[in-house]
């Protein structure tokens, strides 16, 4: 039972952190629960499908289907997160000002919500497919231990939900004014970390060869498999043995996000001045 609890918790831990952040980011957007809920549901369904076709998936691309699939969905999440940040640089103030042009904000807000719902779906899909495979194996095996493992699994899931709520309410304690800046930084690092993870998958598949040497090993300082290491791995993409390409892509995502946000933000200001 404990083993099942640990396995399931490890998988839902990451999803819990990310969903908590997304909930905090969208706190004042109308109808956000429907979108996030939709993302969760789509993620669960897709996770079951991926689990069901896991065998087929791995056989693709000379046995590297799983790696390439993971890299692709991570890439989708990176694009969505970056797009959200850029969108917020443009419209964030309108939403913060809430009552102003609320009708427009709702329409525009749902676009950004779609991006974040996709992020939620993709995260749940990635983590959930392993849980589904594990639980399927449990269900396939016989007898009383299966019931025990199922209880363990459910407890793991509950702990994951607790992580999500802790993240959400933790972020909610930050004053609204500082929250926007905080979540922008969080989402940028989240995207950079996911991009670095995608690089790792491509390197494992031997699809990305340049700069494929490990730059440093900080495992002695903070192991990636420790609980803090895992949390930082999810939140800011911490890896104790990053390759050169991972570092390059990580920094590139941050740089591109900052540049796009500046560009779009200043574009808006000029527009306002011109209109005034």
């Amino acid at each position, binding site marked *: 039972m404990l*083993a099942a609890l640990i*396995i399931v918790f490890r998988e839902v831990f990451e999803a819990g952190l990310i969903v908590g952040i997304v909930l905090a980011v969208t706190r004042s957007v109308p109808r956000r629960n429907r979108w996030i809920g939709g993302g969760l549901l789509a993620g669960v369904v*897709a996770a079951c*499908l*991926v*689990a069901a*076709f*896991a*065998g*087929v*998936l*791995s*056989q*693709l*691309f*000379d*046995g*590297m*289907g*799983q*790696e*390439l*699939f993971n890299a*692709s969905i991570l890439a989708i999440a990176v694009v969505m997160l970056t797009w959200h940040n850029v969108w917020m640089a443009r419209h964030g103030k309108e939403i913060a000002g809430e009552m102003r042009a609320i009708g427009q904000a709702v329409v525009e807000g749902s676009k950004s919500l779609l991006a974040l719902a996709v992020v939620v779906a993709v995260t749940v899909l990635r983590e959930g*497919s*392993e849980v589904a*495979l*594990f639980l*399927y*194996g449990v269900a*396939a*095996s016989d007898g009383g231990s299966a019931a025990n493992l199922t209880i363990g699994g459910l407890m793991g899931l509950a702990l994951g939900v607790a992580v999500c709520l802790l993240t959400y309410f933790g972020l909610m304690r930050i004053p609204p004014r500082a929250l926007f800046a905080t979540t922008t930084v969080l989402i940028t690092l989240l995207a950079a970390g996911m991009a670095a993870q995608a690089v790792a998958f491509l*390197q*494992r*598949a*031997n*699809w*990305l*060869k*340049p700069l*494929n040497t*490990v730059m440093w090993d900080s495992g002695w300082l903070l192991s990636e*498999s420790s609980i803090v290491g895992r949390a930082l791995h999810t939140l800011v993409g911490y890896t104790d*043995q990053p390759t050169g390409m991972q570092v390059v892509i990580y920094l590139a995502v941050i740089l591109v996000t900052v540049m796009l946000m500046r560009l779009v933000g200043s574009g808006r200001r000029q527009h306002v001045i011109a209109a005034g």
Partner: protein
Amino acid sequence: MFYHMLTPIRLTLAAGCAVSLLHAAPALAQQAAEVHLTYSNGAFQPSEVRAPADRPVVFRVKNLDGKAMEFESKSLRVEKVVAAKSEGVINVRPLKSGRYEFYDDFNEKARGVLTVQ
């Protein structure tokens, strides 16, 4: 799953081109050492394997059981689901001499060791 829906021929062509381009770039990479493992009744067979140092290693894990397993190793930095009754291919970059443990993440009792020298 999504790849499956695309036209297989075009996909294969595109993938083939991409792979050959990527593979052509670096000077002939070192030949990878292959390590064959089978997984049945919740145990690796053999549970102790060897590989040469400073050469890429390719694990071929054949899962004969009726449920999925996850081939995982912290020290090798790999993590890969191998579905029931199928074979998983896992690439590992060149290794220094030493002992590297691997296990089934879905079943902690299944463990094995790779000795690199």
